């Protein structure tokens, strides 16, 4: 018996936007509930960016300054 293979249909842009909006709304509500502000996130990101040069790439700021 011949098997039918069903190919996944590419998602429609409207559906992607709807799913994006739903995830964004849930995310925003969860951050709201925990009292996390945009400033908290930006401050945390700045600290992470400061650490990443050394932790991810093994580079020191002093090394780059001397170049």
């Amino acid at each position, binding site marked *: 018996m011949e098997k039918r293979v069903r190919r996944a249909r590419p998602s429609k842009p409207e559906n992607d936007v709807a799913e994006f909006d739903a995830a964004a709304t849930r995310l925003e509500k969860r*951050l709201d509930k925990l009292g*996390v502000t945009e400033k908290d996130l930006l401050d945390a990101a700045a600290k992470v960016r400061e650490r990443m040069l050394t932790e991810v790439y093994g580079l020191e700021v002093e090394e780059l300054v001397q170049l």
Partner: protein
Amino acid sequence: MQTLFLDSNILLEGMRSRWGLSKAVLSLCAARIHQFVLAQHVITEVEGALIEVLQGESTDEAEPLLDDYFTFIKKARPIIVPLATAQEITAASRIIHHLNDAPVLAAAISARPDWLLSNNTEHFTSTVARRTGLRIATPYEFFRAIHP
């Protein structure tokens, strides 16, 4: 369709505000009107920031939030730019005054997007734009340019 390389502050503002131009940029990428270009460096940084602010929260609170973050990113349909090499970062560090931003600039130089969007205009300056050939703008400047 234009390619938009987004700095972490655009992602963070977009995820924290219900309305706003950073959220609009991401919605347009989800709608395939523009193509989101996302550096692995930015992904790691934003995840790190979320983990930092979630410290002390229970896993019942933290895990669904991180799941929503991953869906939020995935549905904006990014093209991922791999981590820059040490040589690329070194080259970028000669262009941008704030060395912590060199890996992001290096990723943008390698991706050659139509736009690099950042709210950090103190670091991603017009001089950096001129020296790299990148079109650097805030979301406001971007929308003003495409809807004159």
